[in-house]
């Protein structure tokens, strides 16, 4: 159908050059994303989900930078793009929503002012036109009486409302890709459900592709089309959501699922993954999951696993059997 995917990431490596050493936060991540597709990115804290997201939009904090790899957006290489051109893409073609709406919105500017600035960041627009666009977009994300609320300040909104404002800001220019970095983690379940419902329908309506970052397998499973599981900066398993979660082939994915209390009988011991996530500063040469892996053997400790491609990607020497 389409010649090239919307987004094509090849062997992305993003490293932080810190005092203590080089933190390889993202190490050889590859994936692609079609128009209108929702991609879930799951993994535990520190696995490199956010850094992957920021790499896509060109906002890796110093001392980090993209060490190598390629990010092609509609066939155009983003790695090494001049800052001005990257800026022109941000917000217009690629937008991002963050985890904590309380921290992302500027508390001292009204919603209208902030959104107007975002509108005017891409081409001239009169204040009135910008406000009008802002109000319409707010209405779309389910904020009633949007025009009047433009003059309100973030603190006058609840957490859920603030996240809607952030989403509306991302939607202003009708981007082709939205990167959502745990946008519901800070919210209550009842509000989270509202936002999830809205995001799903918005994505469907506008055909915007979505990278949905989350540590919650359940959320991703009910929203995304495809899922990438990250561990220690690497993608360890990727595939269609239902298939992958029903029959995970990487021991880590299996372990994650087994850790969920919902998967066990109440009061019974959970099938836990032993140990803790490794420090990204000094990863073992082989499979980073090997020290915690019940199936690991000597090979795992020394050789990085190859990618086993069947219907999906699994980075493991000893993948679990397909169901």
């Amino acid at each position, binding site marked *: 159908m389409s010649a090239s995917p919307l987004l094509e990431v090849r062997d992305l490596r993003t490293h*932080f050059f*810190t*005092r203590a050493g080089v933190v390889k936060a993202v190490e050889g991540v590859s994936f692609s994303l079609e128009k209108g597709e929702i991609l879930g990115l799951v993994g535990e804290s520190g696995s490199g989900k956010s850094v992957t997201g920021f790499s896509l939009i060109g906002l890796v904090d110093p*001392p980090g930078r993209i060490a190598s790899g390629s990010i092609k957006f509609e066939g155009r290489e983003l790695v090494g793009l001049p800052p001005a051109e990257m800026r022109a893409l941000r917000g217009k073609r690629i937008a991002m929503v963050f985890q904590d709406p309380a921290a992302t919105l500027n508390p001292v500017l009204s919603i209208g002012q902030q959104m107007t600035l975002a509108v005017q960041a891409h081409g001239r627009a009169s204040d009135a036109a910008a406000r009008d666009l802002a109000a319409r977009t707010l209405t779309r994300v389910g904020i009633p009486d949007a025009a009047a609320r433009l003059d309100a300040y973030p603190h006058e909104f609840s957490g859920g409302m603030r996240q809607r404002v952030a989403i509306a800001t991302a939607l202003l220019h009708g981007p082709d890709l939205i990167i959502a970095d745990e946008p519901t983690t800070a919210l209550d379940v009842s509000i989270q459900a509202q936002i999830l419902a809205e995001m799903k329908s918005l994505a469907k309506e506008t055909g915007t592709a979505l990278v949905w970052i989350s540590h919650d397998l359940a959320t991703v499973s009910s929203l995304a089309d495809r899922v990438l599981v990250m561990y220690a900066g690497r993608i360890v398993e990727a595939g269609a959501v239902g298939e992958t979660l029903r029959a995970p082939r990487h021991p880590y994915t299996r372990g994650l699922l087994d850790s969920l209390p919902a998967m066990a009988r109440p009061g019974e011991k959970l099938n836990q993954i032993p140990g803790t996530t490794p420090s990204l500063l000094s990863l073992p040469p082989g499979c980073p999951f090997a020290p915690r892996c019940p199936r690991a053997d000597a090979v795992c400790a020394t050789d990085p696993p190859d990618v086993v491609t069947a219907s999906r990607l699994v980075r493991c020497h000893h993948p679990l059997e397909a169901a």
Partner: protein
Amino acid sequence: MRAFWREYRENWIAVVALAVVVVIVLAALLAPWITPQNPYDLASLDLMDARKPPGFVGSEGYVHWLGTDAQGRDLLSAIIHGLRISLQMGIAAGLFAMTIGATLGILSAHAGGWVEAAIMRVVDLQLSFPAILLALVLVAVLGQGKSQLVIALVAAQYAYFARTAYGAATAERQKDYVEAAHATPLPGWRIVLRHILPNCLPPLIVVGTVQVANAIALEATLSFLGLGLPPTEPSLGMLIANGFQYMMSGRTWISVYPGIALIVLIVAINIVGDQIRDQFNPRLRR
């Protein structure tokens, strides 16, 4: 500690500043042994040597590298001894102010209620009043002398420590580990001493370095206004003030060299303080 030093080392300016501070402190400590003259021993001074330019060979037979002041004191010796006194005053004032301020601040943060209200109102009241005026009035009241000056400086500065300690302690007080201590339960004094106090120290140390520098500068200003130390035992500020009257007549060395010494000292302390502050600031860590 080692990590701290490793990080510190990255800023060479701060390293130089630290070296300067160390050298100055050493020079101040060793002043009686390294200076050619004891400027406080009046009998060793000769009025005939007064106001001689740098390089002059005085009646004692050695070279006055930085010249002499109006009393025939060798300026180099006077500056080193002046540094000693200025540092003494600054550190003494800083330490006392820190002890008093930290005690008050942490106490009021812990006690809460009217104790907190009373102490912090007084502190606020004092903070809302210029330190220099307070010191001015106090020095005028207490009279001349090192201890009086230290009292005035402490009175002018403790409030900053109290505020900082209070701020830090109220922030700490809300943290879970303090609540955990209360929940154990541990006695109040133990919570204050073992839990809150150690965690309030970093900001206090930062304020401390800056306040030491401030105390030195404040003392210099008071000296300039005629309310400083006795002229025969001059601090740097006093040396500057004494030489001030010769600025117009071109005998600038009398005031300029002590001035440079003072500036170098204060700048160095401030840079060190800045660096420590930056390093203590977790948000700027990487």
